[in-house]
């Protein structure tokens, strides 16, 4: 057994045989030519460029159906590269200057541009070298008469191993029979990683040369959460991975019987159960897990998975598709929440010494009005097709909310003037994720339609701890008295104003905190779809009186450690009682 370590590029695990895809890269043979042959070489190059152009145009037509507008956008940029003077004119000049064949000249021209991109500080630009080499490969094949040379996907369920996959290869392979990807190159931002995440396929990238050790037909285990590939797994490892997939099946079976049941306490309090999603493809899974709506659509992934900012029309297409998929159920669109751990230079954000306190969330949006308005217009228009809601991130006070709502009013007025279908009255809410927002919740509640707690940030900002700093990670304490007081007071402020309040942070996904949410009196809970049945089970077993009693006990503790201990004892006791009462229905407290 041998463990290869790479970069975790897409979560999940898989155990399957390897399907190794290698692309026989065209080998460039350099030839010195007499001056009389150079015109012919230039003509060959132009003919190859025409061929390459025709191939890409054919793929554009095919991909627009398979991968949506993003796949087509990649290939459209390839068409522009085929016309780029830095590539084409330079290659022609090199044929003449070096008296060499078209293959060698084209290869050299691409290498010059690639080295220029690789000097950039910008991760996004460096990744574009992939696109250049993809175009190069296509042109060289046309020059050498090698045929298209595209890859085919595996015939049986497999782990697809490759040095790297070019963007157009990724599109060609698709998802059929791919249980996982194991890649020599790439990173979390390469096309294949993004595609894998959007399809829920585990992937490990950056394995380097060791990817050659994954031989066709051999059994391997892939752990996309840890970024590991296990070669020749021993029987224990095989058993562990089988158990992981078995667990998945068990959870699925439990899901089946809870899916259509409401989350209702024995004494009749109902909690709305919603799912957090990032990609349109997750809608199906959310519904399969029994989601009554989408409580948090993180729209930044729709931006990050693209080379350029999505236009209003492209966003509308994606958003309207989600509304259609949810068939009349509510969808909360959180506007672009860039910054902190998600800074992307392509959106104009710069590296900051203190990104979590920097230019992010609503601050970034209000400073980028065209970007904000394109997104708002797309959401208002999508709302014509169902109950969409709008949510602003990182609000610290009433002035930001007012400015954001002004932008909403502008969009509504424009859409009305343009005669475009939209819902002018869609609900507008905010994330409560800064202590400031929680403290002035009464003022905010008077000017919006709902709240949703973002507990990851709320805990981090309240306890002044950086989640990414392992030395202070112990301070991530959702039951710290300061956090519990903010949650309690902001919930009370919302209810006093007659607006709904929910939660969409990690805290909601953990079963151990589920009774606290119930005790707080929250109206809705939004979690990863897979967690829905577990949270639902807790709600169905707990009375409101019990949950309120627990919360009161926790809030009487003076330290987070005491509260944590109390919670652990309470849950252990409760589990013991339930096991005694109904041994066959022991809860899964994963």
């Amino acid at each position: 057994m041998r463990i290869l370590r790479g970069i975790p590029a897409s979560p999940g695990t898989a155990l399957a045989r390897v399907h190794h895809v290698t692309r026989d890269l065209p080998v460039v043979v350099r030839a010195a030519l007499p001056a009389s042959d150079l015109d012919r070489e230039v003509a060959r190059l132009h003919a190859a460029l025409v061929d390459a152009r025709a191939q890409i145009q054919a793929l554009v037509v095919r991909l627009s159906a398979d991968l949506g507008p993003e796949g087509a956008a990649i290939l459209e940029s390839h068409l522009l590269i085929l016309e780029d003077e830095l590539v084409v004119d330079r290659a022609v000049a090199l044929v003449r200057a070096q008296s060499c064949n078209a293959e060698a000249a084209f290869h050299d021209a691409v290498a010059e541009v690639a080295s220029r991109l690789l000097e950039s500080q910008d991760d996004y630009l460096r990744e574009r070298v992939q696109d250049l080499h993809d175009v190069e490969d296509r042109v060289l094949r046309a020059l050498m008469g090698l045929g298209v040379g595209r890859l085919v996907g595996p015939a049986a369920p497999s782990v697809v191993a490759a040095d790297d996959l070019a963007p157009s290869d990724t599109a060609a392979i698709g998802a059929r029979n791919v249980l996982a990807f194991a890649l020599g190159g790439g990173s979390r931002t390469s096309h294949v990683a993004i595609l894998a995440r959007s399809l829920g396929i585990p992937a490990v990238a950056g394995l380097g040369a060791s990817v050659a050790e994954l031989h066709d037909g051999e059994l391997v285990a892939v752990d996309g959460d840890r970024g590991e590939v296990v070669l020749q797994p021993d029987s224990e490892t095989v058993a562990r991975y089988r158990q992981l997939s078995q667990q998945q099946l068990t959870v699925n079976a439990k899901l089946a019987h809870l899916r259509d049941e409401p989350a209702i306490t024995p004494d009749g309090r109902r909690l709305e159960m919603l799912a957090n999603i990032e990609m349109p493809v997750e809608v199906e899974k959310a519904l399969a897990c029994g989601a009554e709506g989408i409580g948090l659509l993180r729209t930044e992934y729709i931006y990050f998975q693209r080379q350029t900012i999505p236009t209003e029309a492209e966003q509308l297409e994606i958003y309207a598709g989600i509304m259609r998929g949810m068939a009349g159920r509510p969808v909360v669109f959180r506007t672009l929440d860039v910054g902190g751990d998600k800074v992307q230079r392509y959106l104009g954000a710069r590296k900051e010494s203190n990104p979590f306190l920097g230019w992010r969330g609503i601050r970034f949006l209000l400073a980028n009005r065209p970007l904000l308005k394109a997104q708002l217009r797309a959401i208002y228009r999508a709302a014509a097709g169902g109950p969409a809601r709008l949510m602003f991130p990182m609000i610290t006070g009433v002035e930001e909310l007012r400015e954001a709502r002004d932008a909403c009013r502008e969009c509504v007025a424009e859409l009305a003037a343009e005669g475009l279908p939209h819902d002018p009255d869609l609900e507008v809410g905010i994330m409560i994720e800064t202590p400031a927002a929680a403290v002035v919740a009464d003022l905010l509640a008077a000017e919006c339609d709902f709240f949703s707690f973002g507990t990851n940030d709320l805990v981090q900002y309240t306890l002044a701890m950086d989640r990414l700093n392992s030395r202070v990670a112990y301070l991530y304490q959702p039951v710290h008295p300061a956090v519990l007081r903010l949650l309690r007071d902001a919930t009370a402020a919302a209810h006093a104003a007659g607006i709904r309040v929910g939660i969409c942070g990690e805290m909601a996904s953990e079963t151990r905190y589920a009774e606290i949410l119930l005790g707080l009196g929250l109206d809705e809970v939004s979690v990863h779809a897979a967690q829905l049945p577990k949270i639902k089970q807790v709600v169905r077993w707990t009375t409101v009186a019990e949950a309120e009693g627990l919360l009161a006990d926790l809030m009487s503790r003076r330290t987070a450690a005491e509260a944590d201990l109390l919670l652990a004892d309470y849950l252990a006791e409760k589990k013991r009682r339930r096991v005694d009462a109904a041994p066959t229905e022991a809860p899964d407290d994963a």
Partner: protein
Amino acid sequence: MIATAATISDPVGFHLRAAGRIVKLAKTFDAEVTVRFQGRVANAKSIMGLASLAADCGSVVELEIDGPDDAAAAAALVRLIEIELAHPEIPEG
């Protein structure tokens, strides 16, 4: 020859899509258009050249336009960079 400057209004800066729009417009003129940013130089008719300037939203790029239709090219390119790029929803031709 005309020398001028323009502030990039595209929220994402000179990335591939914005660069593509500039290339398409620049190619409609005979004039040569050179773009300078932070010591780097690119031809406005080259998508990889413009992209590798890595110019962000709000940066000022210098333009040098030389040719028979330089006045018209300068006006159109400044308008594109300063105003039209801010409206990504306008369909590209």
